[in-house]
């Protein structure tokens, strides 16, 4: 009876120390996550020897977002990341992805009360957007032209935009 705990722990150790073979090639090591992209560009046929269904490519690059795409990333910081290094985004995305969301999903500033109401204290002019009289592209309104590619000529009510 005294030996029962020993036996149980021994069995546990045996179960977790079970020998398992990996089918991965030796170069699928800790650096592979950073290196596999260039390897695939060099010789995709070699990848398809094992990944013939492209399941692993599709799973990570098209289906499920990476862990670092947290709710904070989705709602706020992805724009900053895109300004830092767009080549990182291009690992999976092209431009249609950015635009297809930003047509409908607006920045947080746009959701505050009165953002589009000229009579409101929260109206976007001189709160989130600032226009000088000269060059539209070099203004502090650059926040705006990320989505609004060209200077709006009229307002929603049809008036001429300043």
């Amino acid at each position, binding site marked *: 009876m005294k030996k029962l705990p020993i036996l149980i722990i021994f069995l546990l150790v045996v179960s*977790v120390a079970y020998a398992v073979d990996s089918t991965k090639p030796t170069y*699928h090591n*800790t650096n592979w996550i950073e290196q596999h992209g260039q390897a695939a560009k060099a010789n995709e046929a070699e990848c398809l020897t094992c*990944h013939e269904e492209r*399941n692993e490519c599709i799973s990570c690059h098209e289906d499920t977002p990476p862990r670092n795409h*947290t709710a904070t990333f989705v709602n706020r910081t992805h724009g*900053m990341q895109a300004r*830092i290094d767009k080549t990182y985004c291009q690992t999976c995305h*092209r431009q249609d992805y950015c635009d297809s969301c930003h047509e409908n999903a607006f920045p947080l500033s746009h959701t505050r009360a009165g953002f589009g109401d000229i009579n409101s204290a929260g109206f976007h002019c001189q709160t989130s957007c600032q226009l000088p009289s000269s060059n539209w592209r070099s203004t502090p309104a650059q926040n705006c032209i990320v989505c609004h590619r060209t200077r709006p000529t009229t307002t929603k009510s049809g008036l001429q935009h300043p």
Partner: protein
Amino acid sequence: MKNSLKSVLNVELFYVFIVTFLFLTCVNAYAYKGDEFITPDSWNRHVTSNGVRSSINGISFGETGLLKMSYTTRAKLRFSDEMDWPIYQYARLRLSGVQVGQGEFVLNLNVRGAYDNAPTIGDRNYHRFYDGLYASRSYNEFTRSAENLDGDFRIYQGNMEFKNVIPITDISLGRIYLAQIDGYKIDGANIKVTPSQYFNMNVYYGLPVSYYSNLKTQVAGTNIEIPVESSGTRIKLAYSYFMHDDGGNLNTHVARARLDQALSFNPMAANIYAEADLIGKAVVYEAGIDSDIHASKTGISLYVNGQATINNDPINTYVSLYEGLLGSSEYIMGGGKITQGIVDKLLIGVGYEGRFNFKTLYGDRNYHRVFGNIDLVGLIHRNNYLSLIVDYYNVPETKYQNGISQVVGGFRMTQVFTEQLEAWLGVNVQNYQYRNSPIRMNGMINNFDFINQRVNNENTTLAYIGAIYKPVEWCALQLEYVFEYADLFKNADLQPDVHTVEMWVNFLW
């Protein structure tokens, strides 16, 4: 009595220690090769949770064919301020090895159906399963309800391949990926001709599969490849022409030249690459080396990339889907990473990346990034892989723009129990410091100078634990729980905790 019990326990613990020690000493089998720092099979779960498994064996089909089929159900329950439960169904089929004449016929068909009970967030039409597999040629493709966005059905890969049915020719038809331009997905055809082992040529044509059904673009292109296996050299040239339905100046192109050189000699293996692309009127380039010095357990990666010229006044950034993601300024960026294995159980990696823009513009920021990892291989337990990671970004402020800093730290751990059971656990803590507006605006009314320039110092914590269990060859079950805490939501008086439970059930034949 107490002393007696203590004595018995001490003796038993001593036995346990001896037995465990002896057992671990005599078993030398890793779940992976420790001296090569190969990660466990499920290591990619630390990058993404995806639990869709591939078929392995397949079923004989006819005399020479092999049929692989798989079906996956993915159910996700996410609760925070609101509850969301999308369900996904994946069905995949690959028929290969079917002899046609002297050649082979291959069929690939991958489909996904999705349902989401809450496809919008607040009043925004933000689709929860709005991922890469959502792209299609038409918004109402097959069964998706266009009214409330509550479901979709997509063929995300569907093609036929005729390999060498016509001598020296491989033909792919259907929804295919073009390796020539970064896996660009089209509905079309690719014809590959291989007259020699030292030369092959592709011609392709199709319609891009995009989030926009009205993309009005066709792409046609060609590429040649000169592979020299004996020397490990590959030279590739590709040209893709994107045609808009309205034609004229809207048409654009992507041209590419690439050289890869593999080096393999004791005690070192390396891959060297150099590539230059012409995207519209912009020239971008990259070059680098990934090397592994076996004898000293050292890995060295160095890379540089950049943009030499810019696209002045791009006419239509949607045509090729490449041009809008170019830099507005010429830039150069580069970096490197060195990993050093110490004995078989410890590996240390450090890296740096930096970017310099030749002009200061809104969308192009200089930055410095420093990152590192410490991997403990089989140290805690013979079949355990533990990695501690840190990643720091600093974007300095400029005359007109505010600075940003970001640091991520955490750990990743995978335990292989048996060939049937693996589990993983990880924690990432991210700190982001930034101002509300990236622009250093001033002179705003109604206290908005203060609001726009307010400094945010926010933490996001992500923790996950999951396991995959394969009771039999034809079935794999994955279960995972993810916890996320975000200061961003707390500061906005929203629920900062998000809990997600996700289950994947794979049937594989």
